[in-house]
């Protein structure tokens, strides 16, 4: 943590300047993300955005999360994105024009509406000087401009990391355990969807029967040894993808 940031967490002018600069970076990179035509550039914008948010976390007295943000998001998730982009080799220019004209206009209008309503709803009560950090007194208006500590006291007592740790393993222990399920599923999912080749022998139970396609075509059961191939996989629904690129050229 740089001295600047450490100072910023104390509040004051440093915090304001940090917010203005980092906020501008965050906004700019977010716009970059959705406007850059090259997907790799977009990913880099995303990294920048994540870094900016990490700084804001630090300012908001969430030191542990700031670090996690760097490691997990900037370090792992975006790298994963980039990895896939490279793997697929689709770094060429991406068109922003929609199939259906009007999508962009509509999206922008709705985005503005959403922003206005969300900003008004969330920020409304917390804009005054008194609500620098929105402490209880500030909210009720009793603590007339008292310098607000926010999480400082909490963090000072145990330290941000220890405090989070205690919470995670006491109040949130069940949620913490349950994320195991989530991660297992993610791993299985990646394997199921990402694995390139199937082992044919795994696919069909020995001795099981498969319906013949037509009543007339020979015996009811295929021989167990007749290794079904991966190519058969889609046979059942071939019709649904009969003309894959119909009309794709029209854009």
């Amino acid at each position, binding site marked *: 943590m740089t001295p600047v940031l450490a100072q910023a967490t104390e509040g004051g002018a440093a915090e304001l300047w940090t917010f203005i600069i980092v906020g501008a970076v965050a906004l700019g990179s977010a716009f970059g993300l959705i406007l850059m035509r090259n997907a790799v550039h977009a990913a880099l914008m995303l990294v920048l955005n994540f870094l900016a948010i990490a700084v804001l976390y630090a300012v908001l007295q969430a030191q542990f999360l700031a670090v996690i943000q760097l490691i997990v998001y900037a370090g792992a998730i975006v790298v994963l994105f980039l990895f896939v982009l490279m793997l697929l080799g689709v770094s060429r220019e991406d068109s922003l024009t929609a199939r259906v004209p009007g999508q962009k206009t509509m999206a922008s209008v709705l985005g503005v509406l959403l922003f206005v*309503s*969300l900003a*008004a*709803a*969330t920020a*409304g*009560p917390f804009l005054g000087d008194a609500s620098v950090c929105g402490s209880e007194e500030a909210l*009720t208006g009793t603590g007339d401009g008292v310098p607000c500590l926010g999480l400082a006291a909490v963090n000072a*007592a*145990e330290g941000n990391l220890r405090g989070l740790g*205690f919470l995670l*393993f*006491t*109040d*949130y*222990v*069940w*949620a913490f355990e*349950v*994320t*195991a*399920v*989530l991660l*297992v*599923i*993610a791993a*299985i*999912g990646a*394997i*199921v*969807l990402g694995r390139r080749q199937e082992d044919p022998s*795994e*696919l*069909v*139970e*020995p*001795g*099981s029967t*498969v*319906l*013949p*396609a*037509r*009543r*007339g075509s020979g015996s*009811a059961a295929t021989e167990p040894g007749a290794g*079904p191939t*991966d*190519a*058969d*996989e*889609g*046979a*059942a*629904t*071939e*019709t*649904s*993808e009969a003309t*894959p690129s119909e009309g794709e050229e029209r854009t």
Partner: protein
Amino acid sequence: MSALAQQLPAGVEIPEIPWAAISPELTLFGAGILVLLLDTAGERRRSASAIALVALLGIAALAAIPGEAAPVVVALLIGAGVVQLALTLWLHTRPRLLGAVLTVLAFAATIGIAAWQYQAAANGGPVATESLLADMVAVDGVALFTRFVVAGAGIITVLLGFAYLQDRRIHRGEYYPLLLLTATGMTLLASAADLLMVFLGIEILSLALYVMSGIARRDMASQESAFKYLLLGAFSSAFLLYGIALVYGATGTTHIATAGAELADPATPAGLVFAGIALMLVGFAFKVALVPFHMWTPDVYQGAPTPVTAFMAAATKVAAFAAFLRVFTGGMEQLAWIWVPAVSVLAAVTMIVGAVLAVVQDDLKRMLGYSAVAHAGYAAIGLVAVSDIGTGATLFYLLAYAVMSLGSFGILTILERRQRKAIAIADLRGLGQRAPALAAMFALFLLSLAGIPGTVGFIAKFGIVRAAVDAGLVWLAVVLVVSSVIAAYFYIRVIVAMFMDEEPAHLADLPVPPASAASTGVSVAAVAVIALGVLPPAVIDLAERAATFAG
């Protein structure tokens, strides 16, 4: 343990782990991991199974230390381990069958545990409520009822899928673990007493369902449905999460009951309350498929492998509604004046749009997808009634819908095996002659979906209507009736095709669908449709008593 406790700062308490309360989740999750392990162990399945047995014994030894129910738990664990070892020894050369059997056993055990908890909790009265594990887990009527339905649907799904997956060459080892894990997510969601657990539950169940929808890797339809589901699911859960964040911001807590009470406090900033409710509504409306957040439903239902669709329709809906009920009817009862009008309008629009759009569909899975949308609208009426009657009615409706949709999608799995393609209405012509039993059962499910008396669909709709009238929402009841009249038209269309159209030559060449595990599953559903339609008191009673929320 005590040494650790001494290091804790004052005010920090380690919550007690209520093993009994969370045992259904543990069972499902454990079974999922076990099936996964046995599948990946390849030739060494027997040794892997033995290791798993030893691990279970270890857990049993751990469990033997605290608690009164310890002997029961230990005996159950050891028994389960022995059964699993025996099954592995017997079936180790047929991994899919082994997985399927273990999955069914796990679901059956979940039903057993839930029944035991129900018994313990309710002696004729409403199910008692408990908030456990630092107020993260709610063991109450809604949670227990959902466990019943989810586990029951799981068993039937396994029956429906076995031969189907085999035929399509997508009978992969990961299928059963995924099924168990998504069921885990559903029971977690249904018993979530905290908004964080709601979010995690939704994510767990969805993530597993995304993968299951896309399990046919070579099939573009399946991939497309998985992709749409995932992208839109992630998109909408961002809204849900934002809503949760706002509730947290307004109240300083994510515990549903506490937050609900705090939100109703006039001192709470109004903007946060409104935006929070609206955004959470988006998340839930997406999951239960209310218009206009329904658009993924027909596409995903159509593209996903049919047994997966069946499970999605039957179980996801009940789990999502359970959480919906808990958060809105349970937690935010005092704020009903804000959200009831909005949800009422959503429900009304959903009922009409779902029914009208289903009329013009030809693909049966897609038609049933739209019909699912309409049914979500019906079930939502019980929600906006904001009463015990309404909650009970919604729960019963979801049970009924689970039975009907498992049945009808089950029929489709059988037919798809026969024809090796997606089924359009025209493909059903003459089925009444070719396979009368199958066609009769399909007709039964469709009539039940249409709400014809004598079937469970009627009883369920009647319960909903009663709740609506009771709550003074007669106009919603009227919309329901109008919608179900429109719906009758497309259900009847299918029946006409089956019984009153000539069978075209190319269909006559196909073999008659053989009896299989899937027929068993479908028959069970058919019996349930009739039994619950004619003499439903016991189950209605169950649902009404389940209308309790842990505070």
